[in-house]
């Protein structure tokens, strides 16, 4: 039930509303509403119950194993949250002068340095407020670089067909054309096709390594040479940074630009669309184009570098300095881990993925790339189960919810039919991984003996199987007062 549907005219919870804010006499009458906003009118208890119950319906990393491939749903340490919530951080106004912001600027400056070291890049800007915005900033810098050299014909960005959908979208938004490069049967980029595709129109290539199929591209140096020799730049989609953290650096692989998803690799709470942070790192030749602001240290003072300091910058990604609360949590997480801890993150993330893949294979499931070692995630295909029992990957995913596991990513990447993309992260204990394998085995037994159980799953959740086809065909996302016969105005 929506909270609007509980609304009754005149029912109000004003105990916590400051009286002095009810006086609107200092607002010009022309700017005031003529009609009251259609806000729900409920008692304080009703509001508390409504949101408490909603929160109890959450399927979250705090309550369940969440192996949602490509999303790095790892534990969010409580210490990061407590420290980022210190009043000095929380109460700082975004327009506060640098002289009053030296503490937070010191944290941001150190975070820039940590990210530089971890990625092997020459410079980092924390400005982008999400992964997709980081991507956009990255390809805009590629564009600015070629333009600054008078190289205006480089309008093509190469994107492997296994890429995240955001890659081609970002390239198009930055005014590029996208050319797709096929993936070989072993999961690596088809290097012969890449050699055919590069040329004087190549602006760059966007790569995720390890890729979305869960393997590390072994030809990365050859790819870098091929694209660089053609005059293009290499863009690293940092979505899968968790697999290589502290082990391998994109800068050393030859990448010119990288965006990082701090909300994933550096463990800030995410899901449901945000909030995120997508800092970008660049090689030396792209540094002038970084988005502003950056934090620099002059002597003992931290200072914002903005447009006049950086005339070639692609500009701002947000009005202020990015998602401060997320940047702070990521900074604290990085400081708690240290260099050794970061290595352990990637070691355990890949160990957990490989353990889970081996156990599922042992149980008779089909790995999409059985001859390859998994990175921090791997793919199984449920095509044999679909053929034998008539149950698809979505049915498996929904049934896993009944067993208390968040479903893995389904039907992505599109290259593998009936696939589950499984990313356990480093946070999970062996018993939780074993529990997931048991649930998969039980689910397959049900698929064989009682396929309807899967097709109608989930059975035990507050919301049963959604008709996502109907939802997409008849999009209805806005509540209207007249739908319930109540006048909420």
């Amino acid at each position, binding site marked *: 039930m929506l909270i609007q549907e509980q609304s009754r005219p005149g029912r109000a919870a004003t105990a916590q509303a400051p009286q002095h804010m009810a006086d609107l006499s200092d607002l010009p009458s022309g700017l005031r509403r003529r009609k009251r906003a259609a806000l729900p009118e409920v008692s304080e208890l009703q509001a508390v119950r409504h949101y408490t119950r909603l929160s109890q319906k959450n399927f979250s990393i705090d309550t369940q194993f969440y192996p949602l491939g490509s999303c790095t749903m790892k534990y969010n340490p409580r210490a990061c949250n407590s420290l980022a919530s210190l009043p000095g951080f929380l109460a700082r106004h975004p327009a506060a002068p640098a002289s009053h912001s030296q503490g937070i600027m010191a944290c941001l400056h150190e975070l820039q340095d940590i990210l530089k070291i971890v990625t092997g890049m020459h410079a980092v800007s924390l400005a982008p407020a999400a992964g997709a915005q980081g991507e956009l900033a990255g390809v805009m810098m590629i564009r600015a670089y070629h333009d600054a050299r008078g190289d205006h014909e480089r309008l093509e960005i190469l994107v492997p067909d296994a890429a995240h959908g955001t890659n081609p979208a970002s390239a198009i938004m930055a005014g590029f054309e996208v050319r797709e490069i096929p993936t070989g049967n072993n999961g690596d980029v088809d290097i012969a096709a890449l050699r055919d595709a590069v040329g004087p129109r190549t602006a760059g290539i966007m790569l995720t390594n390890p890729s979305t199929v869960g393997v590390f591209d072994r030809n990365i140096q050859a790819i870098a040479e091929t694209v660089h020799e053609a005059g293009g730049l290499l863009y690293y989609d940092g979505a899968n940074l968790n697999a290589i953290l502290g082990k391998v650096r994109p800068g050393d692989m030859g990448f010119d630009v990288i965006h990082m998803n701090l909300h994933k690799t550096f463990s800030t709470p995410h899901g449901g669309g945000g909030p995120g942070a997508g800092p970008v790192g660049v090689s030396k030749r792209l540094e002038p184009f970084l988005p502003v602001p950056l934090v620099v240290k002059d002597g003992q003072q931290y200072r914002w570098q903005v447009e006049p300091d950086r005339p070639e910058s692609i500009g701002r990604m947000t009005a202020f300095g990015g998602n401060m609360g997320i940047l702070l949590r990521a900074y604290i997480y990085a400081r708690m881990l240290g260099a050794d801890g970061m290595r352990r993150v990637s070691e355990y993330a890949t160990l957990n993925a490989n353990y889970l893949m081996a156990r599922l294979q042992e149980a008779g499931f089909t790995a999409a790339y059985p001859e390859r070692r998994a990175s921090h995630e791997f793919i199984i295909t449920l095509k044999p189960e679909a053929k034998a029992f008539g149950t698809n990957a979505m049915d498996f995913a929904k049934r896993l919810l009944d067993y208390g596991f968040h479903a893995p990513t389904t039907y992505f990447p599109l290259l593998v039919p009936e696939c589950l993309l499984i990313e356990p992260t480093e946070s999970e204990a062996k018993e939780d991984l074993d529990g997931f394998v048991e649930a998969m085995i039980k689910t397959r037994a049900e698929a064989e003996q009682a396929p309807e159980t899967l097709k109608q799953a989930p059975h035990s959740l507050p919301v049963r199987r959604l008709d996502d*086809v109907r939802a*997409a*065909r008849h999009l209805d996302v806005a509540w209207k007062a007249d739908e319930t016969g109540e006048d909420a105005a």
Partner: protein
Amino acid sequence: MSNMPAELKFTKSHEWVNDNGDGTYTVGITDHAQEALGDLVFVELPEVGAKLAAEDGCAVVESVKAASDIYAPIAGEVTAVNDALDGAPETINSDPYGDGWIFKLSAGSGAADGLLDADAYQAVVDDEG
């Protein structure tokens, strides 16, 4: 096993083409394609009068799983589009070779001769595993 009418021509990117014999060619997506995409929820049609080169992306089909470009199998000018799909994209799922046609092109005779026949297209589908 998907249905592949022998009188049609096919592309590797899963479009079908029917030579209507009057200088026009009807284009749609194959039974295999609609099955792989799942329930369609949206179709973006080309503009009538658009001049297409072979392999131009000219329409989009979207399912709950994925959005997918449709490519012009042959060069030609769009002479008609299936407006009925606007409110009923599911027609492509239920009748991909009939009422689920997507657009028509005008092109010279024999324009589709170089495309795959049903057997060759079957081999493409088998190869995808």
